[in-house]
Structure formats: structure tokens, C-alpha cells
């Protein structure tokens, strides 16, 4: 059975193809369109998925959209009505925005792909999140928690899942049962996004900056945060509407009462200096909302564990990108293992929707899903070598063993390496196939990466990647920590004795968002880590996404090459090809006369 999953129209569109119960292709639209967080209908991604399997749209058995668009429209309209007459400004925008195309999803899919309308199916938004988290995990039975900004109405759901045959019965069907939900406007995702906006960062993109900033602050304003989000007697939470405006307008998420409580917001153009009183105030606010988010999630997860008595938790939705909260859930909720998929956000819903349809709607037998994130386009090393030679760059080609030694030598010499290997990652993290790699030891390397490539704020840390065999030596991983770190989903302490030697990847609070790499997941990167370990005793590298600020992670060899050419990357690797940067003559004359 061939099922195409689609997520689109809000942020981070994507498509995923499931054939006979197993994913064969999945990619975010932004990686192909080259527009970061592309929310448009993912035509490039769909075409690529179908081309990869040499399918026509007519060959598909079903096309599944990741949410029920009319239900979402009903929520938007209802919220606008509730805010009458204050919502008069946002009403025309909301109606044009949704009635323009978002509610006509069935027609759009039918016309764009030319498929029979009867083949077009829908899942609930949080059911897609739940499926993406549970059906891609190796767990047979698990509690399921999903949390994001908002789907149709739900912002957080709790339930459980069981794969077919979990009880040893041949006929048992896979089930995903969401038992309860918290509804908009009460939303942990929107709470965090509101503070993201208040702190001068971009909503739906820069939430991880709040998490990074939180480590510089102390949670001195937890009481104030708890005045805007209160716990309910049943263990859930409710936001206090007077402090927020996201439920009534799309232009501002917090109210003047919120500003009265927390003080003036940070202008986005002002750099944050945590040495100043104002910078510390913002860091304290970030730490406070982070603490409240963690406490709330831990309580909800603990109650779910006690209710289900299951050892595994599958956690999906955009909030599951918060690695600090994930680590606390693992440590404090009673779950032995926490699974967060590589794409827990809306992009991952394309795969979740396709898997949900396969297992739940069509009741197909359960199949194990390969435990890796590499579902995107393959890199073509020949393209890289040709383009680099045409540009008079130095290109070498090696066999695998020689290449690994050569790159390890480059890293030991403090060169920054652009590393492209095989299929690209599905999800926001670079997990070893489209990565920038560097030595993790010196603060100077972090500063150089920031200055010459990433242009990040100083308070944001870089992440390490370590072999699974050596992970415990350098990082204090709790039981289940290595699993959570498989897709860089948890933040854990760097062991104190190694912090000085891992200064480029150790955050100010001594933690790191580490990726624990098993050989089977990315054998070449694993071999490279081992080669680095043989040289300096530490099979650890700094691993950050292969892109520059504001751009999607590179996908093709030529995108990697153009990034390499215009920033401070020293060496570029794809397949057997290694390109070493050398200065090229500018095509631009010193003086210019008009043609």
C-alpha cells in the first residue's frame, strides 16, 4: 500500500511516503524550495517523494493530510467571535488567510496531484503527532504525550499506543488512543512562544534561543509566570487570558497587563548582554518560563505514567524540541525510556499522518520503522567535485579509510568541515548527514563558528556528537539518556572533569545537547569520531547544522558548495570528494564603467 502524508499551510510543510507500512522518503519543503520554514503546499517535497519511488500520483492508495482543516477553521472563527468586538482588526485577515486556501485542502490536493478525491484522507493534528512519535519508535506499548502551540483545538493530549501483536495475538491491531486533551487557548506551546516574542525573538523559530538564554538566568520570576498560567485541580493548566492576546489577534501575543507584570519587552534589535541588569532580567524571565514549562510537563508525564504503568513514553509536538524539559521528564516522571522522534514538530506530522492511516485507518499489520532520521535526498559527490574543479578549488578523492584519516587530521588542525553524507535528515536537527563539524575543545572554535559562519547570539551553545561507546565517559547520562540523545533530544551534564576540554560544546550551566551516535546509524561519522579519538583520546566533535543563519540546512552538494564558498568553512566533504578552500580571484573589477 502506498500512502503519501502531507503537512502544510502553517509552518514547516513536508511530505512523506510510506510503502507497505515502512517510510521510504520524507522531506521538508524548505530543503527543496530553499525558503526557511516554508509553509506553502509542499509540491517540491511531494514530487521528490514520488520520483524517488518512481510513482505517479495515480499509483497512490491514499493521500493523508495532517489535520482537519474545517475543524481548525471553526476554532479560528469561534475565537474571533469570542473576542468580539476587539477582534475586528484581525477578523478580515483571519478570514482571508483561511478562506483563501487553507480550508480547501481536499480541492488543492486533488487539483495539484490529480488524485481521486475519495483517496484524500485526514487525521487529527495531534493524532499525527502521536503517530509520528509512537510508530517511529521501537516501543511496542507506550504512553503518548503530545504538546504544541495548537492544532485544531487541542494543544496537549495524553494517551497510549499499542502495536499490533503487542499482546501476542496475531490479529491485534495497532491502536493509538488519545484519552484527554487541553484545548486552545490554554497552551504550553503558545505560552513559550509568547515569551519568545516578549524576549525579542521570532515566534515558531527562535524558541530554542529562550532555552539557551535560560541557562544564564535564575528562575526568580516563577511566581509571576505562575500568575499567567495556573494549574487546575485535575493536573492540567489554564492560561489567564488577560495576560495574552494570541487568542484574539495574530499581531501580538501578550497584553499590556503582561508587560506590567514582567516589565518592558526586549526590542529585537537590541543585543542581549547578560552582564547588564537588563540582560539578566531577560535571562531570569527565560529561566522562569523554562522552569514552569518543565514543572508542568513533568507533573503531567508523571500522572500519565502512574495511570498507564507503562515504562515507555513517546513525546511529540513542537514542545518536544525542548531538550532540557525532555531530560527532566526522563529523570523525574517515572518513565524508563522517553522517545522523541527526529521531527517532533509539524513537519514530522507528514510521516505521522501516513503511518496513522496505514496502521489505524487501513489496519495494516505493524512493521518496524528503521530507527534513523535519514529519509531525504542523497548527496551527489560527483556534482561537488565537478563544480569545485570548475572553480579552481582543490579537490581530492579518497577511499573511505583514507578520507576518514584525512578529515580527522583537518579537524585536529582546527579546520571547520562541512560534512555531507548520504540522505539528508528529516527534522530540524543535523544528525550527521548535513553537519558542520569542528574540534570541540576550545572556546575560540565556538567564537570562530559564530563569527564566520553561524552569526549566532553568544548565549547559544553548540552541540557535541559522541560515539555511543564513549558517551558515558564524557556526559552524565541517566538510564535512558542515550536513547533520548540519539536524535539530540535531551540536554545532559558534561562531566565536570571534561568541561574544560569540551569548552566549545559545554553550555554555561555545564550541560550539552549531546547526540549519542551508534555506528549503525551513521557509520562514516562514527568512524570519523573514532579516528578523532585515536588522535586526541576524545571521540567527540562539535556538530552543528550545515547552514548559515536564516537559511535551511543544505540539501544538495551544490548548496553545500555555495555555502562553503561564502563563509568560513575550510573543508567540504561529500562521498569520496574532499574540497579544500583556496582563495579565488574575484570576478569583480576594481573600477567599473557602465555597459
Amino acid at each position: 500500500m502506498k500512502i503519501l502524508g502531507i503537512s502544510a499551510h502553517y509552518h514547516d510543510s513536508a511530505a512523506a511516503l510510506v510503502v507497505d507500512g515502512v517510510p521510504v522518503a520524507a522531506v521538508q519543503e524548505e530543503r527543496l524550495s530553499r525558503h526557511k520554514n516554508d509553509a506553502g503546499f509542499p509540491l517540491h517535497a511531494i514530487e521528490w517523494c514520488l520520483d524517488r519511488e518512481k510513482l505517479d500520483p495515480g499509483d497512490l492508495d491514499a493521500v493523508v493530510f495532517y489535520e482537519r482543516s474545517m475543524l481548525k477553521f471553526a476554532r479560528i472563527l469561534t475565537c474571533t467571535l469570542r473576542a468580539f468586538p476587539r477582534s475586528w482588526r484581525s477578523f478580515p485577515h483571519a478570514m482571508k488567510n483561511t478562506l483563501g486556501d487553507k480550508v480547501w485542502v481536499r480541492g488543492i490536493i486533488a487539483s495539484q496531484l490529480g488524485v481521486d478525491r475519495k483517496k484524500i484522507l485526514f487525521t487529527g493534528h495531534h493524532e499525527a503527532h502521536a503517530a509520528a512519535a509512537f510508530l517511529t519508535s521501537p516501543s511496542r506499548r507506550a504512553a503518548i504525550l503530545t504538546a504544541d502551540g495548537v492544532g485544531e483545538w487541542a494543544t496537549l493530549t495524553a494517551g497510549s499506543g499499542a502495536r499490533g501483536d503487542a499482546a501476542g495475538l496475531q490479529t491485534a491491531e495497532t491502536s493509538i488512543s488519545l484519552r484527554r486533551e487541553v484545548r486552545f487557548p490554554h497552551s504550553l506551546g503558545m505560552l513559550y512562544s509568547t515569551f519568545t516574542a516578549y524576549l525579542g525573538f521570532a515566534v515558531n523559530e527562535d524558541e530554542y534561543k529562550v532555552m539557551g538564554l535560560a541557562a544564564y538566568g535564575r528562575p526568580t520570576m516563577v511566581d509571576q509566570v505562575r500568575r499567567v498560567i495556573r494549574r487546575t485541580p485535575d493536573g492540567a493548566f489554564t492560561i489567564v487570558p488577560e495576560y495574552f492576546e494570541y487568542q484574539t489577534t495574530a499581531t501580538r501575543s501578550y497584553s499590556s497587563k503582561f508587560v506590567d507584570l514582567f516589565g518592558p519587552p526586549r526590542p529585537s534589535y537590541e543585543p542581549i548582554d547578560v552582564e547588564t541588569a537588563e540582560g539578566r532580567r531577560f535571562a531570569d524571565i527565560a529561566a522562569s518560563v523554562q522552569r514552569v514549562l518543565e514543572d508542568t510537563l513533568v507533573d503531567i508525564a508523571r500522572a500519565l505514567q502512574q495511570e498507564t504503568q507503562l515504562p515507555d513514553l513517546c513525546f511529540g509536538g513542537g514542545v518536544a524540541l525542548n531538550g532540557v524539559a525532555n531530560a527532566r521528564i526522563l529523570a523525574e516522571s517515572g518513565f524508563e525510556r522517553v522517545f522523541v522522534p527526529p521531527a517532533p514538530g509539524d513537519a514530522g506530522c507528514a510521516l505521522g499522518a501516513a503511518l496513522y492511516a496505514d496502521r489505524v485507518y487501513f489496519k495494516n499489520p505493524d512493521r518496524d520503522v528503521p530507527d534513523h532520521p535519514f529519509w531525504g535526498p542523497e548527496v551527489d559527490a560527483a556534482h561537488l567535485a565537478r563544480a569545485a574543479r570548475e572553480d579552481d578549488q582543490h579537490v581530492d578523492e579518497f577511499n573511505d579509510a583514507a578520507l576518514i584519516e584525512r578529515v580527522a587530521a583537518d579537524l585536529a588542525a582546527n579546520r571547520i568541515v562541512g560534512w555531507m553524507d548520504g540522505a539528508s535528515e528529516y527534522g530540524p536537527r543535523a544528525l550527521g548527514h548535513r553537519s558542520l563539524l569542528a574540534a570541540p575543545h576550545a572556546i575560540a572554535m565556538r567564537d570562530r563558528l559564530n563569527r564566520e559562519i553561524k552569526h549566532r547570539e553568544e548565549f547559544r551553545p553548540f552541540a557535541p556528537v559522541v560515539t555511543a561507546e564513549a558517551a558515558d565517559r564524557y556526559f552524565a547520562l541517566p538510564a535512558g539518556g542515550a536513547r533520548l540523545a540519539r536524535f539530540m533530544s535531551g540536554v545532559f551534564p558534561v562531566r565536570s572533569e571534561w568541561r574544560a576540554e569540551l569548552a566549545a560544546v559545554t553550555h554555561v550551566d555545564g550541560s550539552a545537547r549531546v547526540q549519542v551516535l551508534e555506528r549503525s546509524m551513521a557509520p562514516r561519522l562514527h568512524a570519523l569520531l573514532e579516528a578523532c579519538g585515536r588522535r586526541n583520546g576524545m571521540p567527540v566533535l562539535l556538530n552543528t547544522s550545515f547552514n548559515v543563519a536564516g537559511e535551511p540546512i543544505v540539501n544538495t552538494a551544490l548548496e553545500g558548495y555555495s555555502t562553503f564558498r561564502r563563509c568560513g568553512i575550510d573543508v567540504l566533504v561529500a562521498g569520496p570528494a574532499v574540497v579544500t578552500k583556496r582563495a579565488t580571484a574575484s570576478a569583480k573589477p576594481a573600477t567599473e564603467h557602465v555597459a
Partner: protein
Amino acid sequence: MSAGTRSAPLDRLLRPLHKWVWSDHDRRVRKLLIFGAVETDGGRDILRASEVTPDPLLRRLYLEHAIDELHHGVLFRERGEALLRQRGLREGGLFSGNPLPGGHGLDDLVVEDQGDPRLLAFLHIAEKTAAGRFAIYKDCVADDPATLAIFEKVLRDEVFHMNYSYQQLGRLTPELQRRHVWRARGTRLWNRYLRVAAAIAGLIGNILLTGMYFIVLPPFAWAARRAERRETPGWRALAADRAASPTSQY
């Protein structure tokens, strides 16, 4: 003003208006920040062109062009932010409307859909227009040496961009060079018309929807608020048999 960076007649006619726009601190900041965003977007489009062209020389030129545009974006943004820090913006906010169109942008260009000749013709026209306008802006900010220096740098680069794009167009299609340029002018004009038409349609839509909001919605709003009051905070149980039809959008 450099030879060949003559402004369009309309821009020359609007010079007093441009002077008025640039004379105000808030509007100057807003323009610079908008230029920053536009140049960055344009740079990314040209970067895309460098990644998809099969022509090695064009790949190098596009890449150099893209690096220039991205750098211009940084210069404009940093200057805008510096002015903002000098004196906070007055009431009205940063993005309360663009007082005048500026920069060149790339008109939502889909690079993959263009052949190199069409793209080069388009770039030539866009850069020429931008160079003419920047020449006027340079005169308007003579009182502000830091901003003036940015415009001088950008103007020099724009001249290179309009020259190389024209020369490469001649290399690729010598016999159709002028036709491509005229076609690019026509496309640009058509896109402007579409933007104006869409803006007018949007305005009419807003008026109609706002009217509907106040005339039709009040009873429904009353009912919605009444229903909201009955909602209890916290968890909401989901029925085990609630599964909606797979084909339902509700």
C-alpha cells in the same frame, strides 16, 4: 552620480518626496531595515541561481553577486539597528507601513523556472532600477556619513551587477539580448500591476469583511461567549469511540 546610474524619470520627479521620506529618523530607520530584508531575500534568490545554473562562469558570477547582496542586507540592517539604538522609534512601530517602495527585491522570483537568459535580463533591469534609485537616496542622506557610505558601496556593486548581467546575456544570446531586456521590463511592469491590483482587492476585501463583522456576527458572538462560559478549564476527556471519519475535515 555615476555615469549610467541615471534615475528613472519618475524617480527624478519624486526626488522631493524621497528627500522628505529620508529626512525623518523613523522613516529612515524603517527604510534601512526594509532594504536589509529585501537585499537579503534577493541575495538568497541569486544564490539559488548559482546552485542551479549549469554554466560555470555564471555560477561564479551569481555567487559573487549573491555575496554582495547578502552583505548589503547586513549593512542596511546593522545601520538601521544602530540608528534605532541612537534614538528609539517613535509611536507607530517599525512596520506600520512602508512610506515608499524601495530596494529592488526580486519580485518573488522562482529561480528554477527561469532560464539563465531570462534571469540575467531580469537582474539587469532590477539592478539598473535599484542603482538609479540608490543614487537619489545617496543624495538624500548626505547629512549622515555612515548611511551615505553604505549607499556609495552598494551603488558601486550595483553597477557591477548590471554590467555583468548585461554582458553575460550578450554572451549567451547575442541576437536576442535586447528582446530579453524588453521582455524583462514588461514582466516587471506586469508584476507591479499585479501587486497594485492585489492590494486594491485586499483593501476591498477588508472593507467588506469588516462590514460583515459588525452587521452579521454580533448574535453569533453572543452565542460563542455564552458557550465559552460553560467550558471548564483543565483536561477534556476524549470519548473512546470519537474517531471521526478518515475523509472528514471536521
